[in-house]
């Protein structure tokens, strides 16, 4: 079992949860300015996935809805479309979270990569973005990038949420 996960509740770690969503949103907003950061996954979704696994007494579906709406506003897409994708991925994670937190980190990364591939496929079918030259490779490299980013998210947020659990 991964040491970074602790049974915690939203109340004990609420400031870290809110701050982590805010920081993730800032990173995503920063990334949409730069061409090659097309491979950057939606960090807010990765952070949401972490909290889904970490905080077991909540479903996080409303959070998925709210974060999805913010992504819709950010990307100028149909309101609710990102929310739908976020909710689908959150729901899959909800079904799997107990099994997910019991596997080694590398295996979690692999699973996150698969979830994000699912997300990206849905994203591609929904929005049919025009991908020219390098954009095509960058766009479809996103699940791989997610798999690499996941351990960092688990370690950082696991470390940050630990003191709040003990307090």
């Amino acid at each position: 079992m991964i040491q970074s996960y602790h049974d915690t509740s939203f109340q004990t770690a609420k400031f870290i949860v809110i701050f982590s969503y805010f920081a993730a949103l800032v990173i995503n907003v920063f990334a949409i300015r730069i061409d090659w950061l097309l491979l950057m996954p939606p960090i807010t979704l990765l952070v949401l996935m972490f909290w889904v696994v970490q905080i077991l007494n909540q479903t996080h579906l409303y959070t998925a809805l709210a974060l999805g709406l913010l992504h819709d506003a950010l990307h100028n897409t149909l309101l609710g479309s990102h929310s739908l994708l976020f909710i689908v991925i959150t729901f899959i994670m909800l079904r799997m979270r107990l099994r997910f937190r019991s596997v080694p980190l590398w295996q979690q990364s692999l699973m996150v990569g698969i979830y994000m591939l699912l997300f990206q496929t849905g994203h591609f079918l929904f929005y049919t973005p025009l991908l020219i030259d390098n954009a095509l490779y960058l766009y479809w490299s996103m699940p791989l990038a997610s798999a690499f980013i996941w351990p960092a998210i688990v370690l950082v947020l696991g470390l940050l949420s630990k003191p709040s659990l003990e307090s």
Partner: protein
Amino acid sequence: MSSDFYGQYMGHIRNLLTSTLEPVERLAAIPTQIHKWYTHRLQDNASLQNQLLKLNTENLLLKARLQRMESLEQELERHRRLLGTTGRMDNQSLQIASVLFYSNTPLTQYLTINKGALDGVNLNQPIIDDKGLVGQVTSLTPTASRVLKITDPNHQVPIRVLRTGQRGILTGLGQNQLGIDFIPTSANLQLGDLIVTSGLGGIFPAGYPVATITDITQIDGQTYYSIKAQPIADLFNAHEVLILSGFRGQP
């Protein structure tokens, strides 16, 4: 999703979400601003003096051209009166805005500028830079506006080819590319032809440069050309833009 797609009823909610994102956008822009500030600090006096000299020269040339344009406007107005047409010269006003943030993804291409509803900006107002058309205001917050760039896949502009007057529709293709639709294969087109706004539809005033033609393909059996174009405006590096108002169709 349905109400947003079919009815545009969700405009207020979108504006609310955009307002929520505004401080996040400002925060995300800080690293770039620090980088710009640092680069600016590194410039020596000599290069700044050179830049000043260049700008002074450019200013002088522009003033000379403006004088000529004013006389041409008066002459055109006089000719219109003589011809008895109902047309009138537009009395456009300009407002300068700074670019706060921009998006550069295949999904959407927009700018966020530092003028909003409190500054008198309205929806659909056209935005230009010193070279040509940039886009139009699609979303407003009290202190900022979001401008959909002409390269956005959801953006279209009625245009005409300056050399021949042939009309068409310019569509954004994303990633700094444009396509031109509805130009028949019988039309006279050349690579490098300048595309300007036609003024049809009342959103964009006529005569502003938009793009140059970079590729013309005739597909067998098709009645229209497949045309690619390159925007003239500096869509990715512009720091300051102009908001146009006061022409027909605009408040």
